[in-house]
């Protein structure tokens, strides 16, 4: 598969994953771009990795962790400087998107490992083995985490605005 095609396929999935983790669309795009840049450099230097998806999502996962930690550290300073007003936990620009807000809110209620596994599966479209590599656990544990996270989300997510689903808990 060509590099350009792989990058184009990965971009929306990476943005969605980073958006779910950070709650900020700008930060999500930056993380996706940096991760893809790393993939492009690796591809051109040493050929494609065994699993481009797994390789890129592993980088994105690390960068998301760093970005969240950095934001936690600089949040008080940003609040003092007034920067934080433009970029709250969930982007002000998307606050009116109740569906995104409710999904992100429900996601935050999940355990970190469960949430990560579910996002890598549902949004990242990685296989169980790839998720196991990225998260450093076994495929069996990954399956269990995803199943648990799904059930939890069904209970946490409010009724869909257009009434397609009734709340089960």
């Amino acid at each position, binding site marked *: 598969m060509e590099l350009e095609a792989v990058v184009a396929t990965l971009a929306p999935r990476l943005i969605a994953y980073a958006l779910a983790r950070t709650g900020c669309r700008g930060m999500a795009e930056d993380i996706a*771009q940096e991760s893809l840049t790393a993939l492009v450099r690796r591809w*051109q230097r040493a050929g494609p990795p065994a699993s481009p998806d797994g390789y890129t999502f592993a980088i994105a996962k690390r960068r998301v962790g760093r970005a969240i930690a950095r934001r936690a550290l600089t949040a008080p300073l940003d609040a003092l400087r007034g920067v934080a007003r433009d970029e709250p936990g969930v982007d002000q620009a998307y606050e009116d998107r109740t569906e995104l807000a409710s999904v992100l809110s429900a996601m935050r209620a999940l355990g970190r490992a469960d949430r990560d596994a579910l996002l890598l599966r549902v949004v990242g479209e990685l296989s169980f083995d790839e998720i196991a590599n990225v998260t450093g656990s076994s495929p069996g544990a990954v399956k269990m985490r995803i199943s648990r996270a799904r059930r939890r989300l069904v209970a946490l997510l409010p009724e869909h605005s257009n009434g397609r689903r009734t709340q089960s808990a």
Partner: protein
Amino acid sequence: MDDERNLHEVDARVRAALMTDAAASDRVTARALADGSVRAVPRNWYAVVIVAALIVVLGAGVWQWRRTTRASAAPPSLAITGHGSILVVDSEDGRRWVVGPAPARRTGGNYVIVIPQ
């Protein structure tokens, strides 16, 4: 069965909520391909630049040090005074040279009469 459907619907809801617009994806893709294609400066180059800078600084230091030591080893200064056509050169260490014009004609055969007073 209903439970299974709910689980799949959750996946669809999560995907739909986090869906990215095509413009953002295209932007990220284009930038990643452009940034990734730019040849990154190899780390060895940084080492070479740092070593070269150190050599330059060290060389400048040595040159400056040698210049100052050479200046301190310079001969003592001389004071030159003139008395008519005669130059008197006084050295710091007490030596003195008197330089005058060459005699116009040879004075061989002249003599001096010394009269005690």
